[in-house]
């Protein structure tokens, strides 16, 4: 299934991309998706422990199982204020 992926802040510079699509197998987790994305965009590798991940508008952990139509966002630690 295809997952829409958005990048924010300097993750756009690391990937050269604001939005993309990534095909994952049924039952794939966010952790699996992240591995695939790092293989495709090696610049994300160094940041992987501090990367924040949301599905829709809610944070999700690495073990969260993805489903068809999910919109996933990846971004660095937030810095509002």
């Amino acid at each position, binding site marked *: 299934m295809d997952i829409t992926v*958005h990048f*924010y*802040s*300097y993750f756009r510079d690391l990937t050269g991309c604001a939005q993309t699509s990534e095909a994952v197998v049924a039952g794939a987790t966010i952790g699996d998706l992240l591995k695939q994305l790092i293989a495709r965009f090696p610049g994300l590798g160094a940041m992987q422990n501090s990367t*924040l991940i*949301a599905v*829709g*508008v*809610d*944070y999700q952990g690495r073990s969260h199982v993805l489903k068809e139509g999910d919109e996933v*966002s990846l*971004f*660095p630690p*937030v*810095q*509002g*204020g």
Partner: protein
Amino acid sequence: MKRQLTITTEPIDEAALLSRRRMSDGMGAVVYFLGVVRRTEERAPISAIEYESFDRMAEHQFNLLFDQMEKRWPVESVRLVHRLGVVRVNEPSLWVEVVAPHRGEAFAACQWLIDEMKRVVPIWKKPLA
């Protein structure tokens, strides 16, 4: 709890915000916080900070924080304005107002909200030279 959230590229107009404050006669404390862009960011001089947000998620995360705030403290109203885009040195990027019966809870709720915002609300900054 009344809540008013504004995420905007417009400058923050403190005087206008002040003039729109409403509080009931059981309220004894108003705490404001104003966050202002400083001349130096990580020791390097800058001219401005550019703020970017994941808008829909930022709104949702602010509302989750307001939900928690309402459960923890007897706050009558919270108003928060976060500016996006280019904010020059000496201009405010954040304005927060908390109205509560007593000062202890107003200070605690205001500080908690800002701390949590900096942990979960998807807004990022880029210093501009």
